[in-house]
């Protein structure tokens, strides 16, 4: 696959050329953390981060998104009829996505883009995006991507993988979309030594010291794990807040709501969390996941067992470590995964 050399002196110039054809999105430093945002005119993405605080899943799956709109004005002929909302489907280029987050988009895709169901909002935003990854050379101590079928130089889900070589970037073209973007930016010089990428890749992988063991999970029965004795201990400290689910790049659950103001209304979807009691509350008042033990078990069973059994694509976790770093009470998915993987049911 072709590797292009981008001189850092030509970086801003290339990005400016792209602004005509794409909306540019990239990590920006705010206060003491980085998050993805639409770049202002002349604003450059800032790559000096371990990873962004929130994941870039919101590029295709924003926390709140209007799906349909309606009018309650009975003087109008089409009142009370749900109408499509015009969405911006223009091309956008997302810079600085970490390989773990790109892989996460592929896992989310398994849910939003299937042969039976196609989520038009997610698919439209995803297809409009060209994803330019930034390889990870300084993984954090909470990164365990190499044991989740991913890695700091993983290419899955990306259109281009960029690697920082000091005074220049190497950009490995992964898809046609990626190739087009590089052409439009005027970055055409072939790299003199593309093997540098492989070298840096092994160096970075060696820096990842954290791992989870998942190989036994597949052979465990759901009921054995469900009834395992450790859930009370794991869930005790849990506050049942939505932090882990909201910062997770692979959590895809949402809730649909109608909101009307005066005579205008919208149907929208908002992120939801299996940690919230309301998530499963029936209109009868019955709640099948009544206690936090139920809810905590559900989250980990979904990520580490149900998903694996249903899709055969490994666990529903890319090892980005956000939930570990941001959990208010330090519940650590690595510890839970190990407990599940090593669990032996007594007969």
């Amino acid at each position: 696959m072709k590797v292009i050399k981008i001189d850092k002196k030509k970086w801003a110039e290339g990005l400016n050329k792209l602004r005509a054809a794409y909306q540019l999105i990239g990590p920006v430093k705010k206060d003491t953390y980085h998050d993805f945002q639409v770049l202002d005119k002349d604003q450059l993405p800032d790559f000096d981060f371990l990873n962004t605080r929130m994941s870039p899943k919101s590029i295709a799956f924003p926390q709140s998104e209007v799906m349909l709109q309606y009018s309650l004005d009975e003087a109008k002929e089409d009142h009370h009829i749900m109408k499509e909302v015009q969405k911006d489907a223009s091309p956008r280029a997302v810079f600085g996505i970490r390989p773990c987050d790109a892989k996460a988009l592929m896992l989310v895709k398994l849910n939003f883009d299937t042969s039976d169901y196609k989520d038009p909002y997610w698919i439209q935003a995803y297809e409009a995006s060209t994803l330019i990854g930034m390889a990870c050379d300084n993984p954090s101590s909470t990164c365990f991507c190499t044991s989740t079928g991913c890695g700091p130089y993983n290419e899955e889900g990306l259109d281009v993988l960029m690697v920082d070589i000091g005074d220049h970037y190497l950009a490995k073209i992964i898809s046609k979309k990626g190739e087009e973007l590089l052409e439009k930016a005027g970055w055409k010089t072939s790299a003199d030594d593309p093997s540098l990428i492989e070298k840096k890749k092994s160096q970075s992988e060696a820096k990842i010291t954290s791992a989870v063991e998942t190989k036994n999970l597949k052979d465990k029965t759901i009921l054995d794990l469900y009834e395992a004795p450790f859930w009370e201990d794991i869930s005790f400290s849990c506050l049942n807040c939505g932090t882990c689910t909201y910062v997770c790049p692979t959590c895809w659950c949402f809730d649909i709501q109608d909101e009307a103001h005066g005579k205008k209304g919208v149907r929208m979807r908002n992120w939801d969390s299996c940690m919230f009691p309301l998530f499963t509350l029936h209109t009868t008042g019955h709640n099948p996941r009544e206690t936090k033990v139920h809810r905590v078990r559900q989250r980990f069973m979904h990520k580490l067992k149900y998903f694996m059994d249903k899709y055969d694509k490994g666990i529903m976790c890319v090892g980005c470590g956000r939930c570990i770093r941001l959990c208010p009470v330090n519940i650590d998915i690595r510890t839970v995964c190990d407990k599940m993987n090593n669990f032996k049911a007594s007969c």
Partner: protein
Amino acid sequence: MLEYIDKIKEISTRLLTEKKVDIIIGFRKGTLPMSNEPCFAKNAEDIKSFVWDSNCGINLANYLPNRKEKIGIIAKGCDSRNIVTHIIENKIKRDQLVIIGVPCKGMIDRKKISDMFEKEITEVTEKQGKITVKGNGVEKTIEKSKVLQENCAICIHRNPVIYDELAAEKVEEQKNVDRYEDVRKVEAMTPEDKWKYFDNLLENCIRCYACRNACPLCYCPTCFVDEAKPQWVGKSQDPTDTRTFHFLRAFHCAGRCTDCGACVRACPMGINVRAFTKKLEKDCFELFNWEAGLSMDERPPLDTFKPTDPDEFIK
């Protein structure tokens, strides 16, 4: 404070072996620096994992409501005040509890420390009022007093107000502390500036409710933001809904908040959630000479009436 742990373990083991309690609620070492995890122990073996240091900022009183068994609980000053509040509000019975009081010298602010370092912090240790931070080739020792959680720096109730056992000699309470400098700054603002100040505070809120769920006061069976039949508050990122949640929650904590800082510590987005409750805490102190959770014999000002009430309209 590190030296407390032996005594804490000794008391806890005794309480469990003598069957005085069914469980003990405490902390075990977390997997990250500056993060301990609340946990429970049911036997002497479990007690071995208990820790006590300057990373026990989560308020353990939060784990009490609606529990049925006999509970031993490790309580620093603020936890003990929230236990009193729970007892007054009938969320737990006094005779269900054996309180292991821990005189506290303040918890450290992990965000403040993380923000002081460019690189990731991999190890934090403490010794005699000093905190040593290590990470990626950097090592630095800082005075603990400089990196305390803000609420701890101005705390005047470090000793537990209610306890059955004490894990150490009581510590000297801080004197001449200006507890409300930050509130006075906001009070002095114009209405427009106040609005801007609170909007800026909430800019990053993701409505995860970690602040509410870490708060011992927030035990409503159904929080108003979770009311569904009918729904009271919108679920989107609309600033009006986010404000409504934070403002109403703060008002609901008026006269009950002990300024334990659990909300700030829990917030994944680094929002100073105390900024909402602090003014109400100040008002309760100035109007009613009231500090929450200090006495089991007095009703909180917002659920009682006194002829000496400073407001004319109520008389």
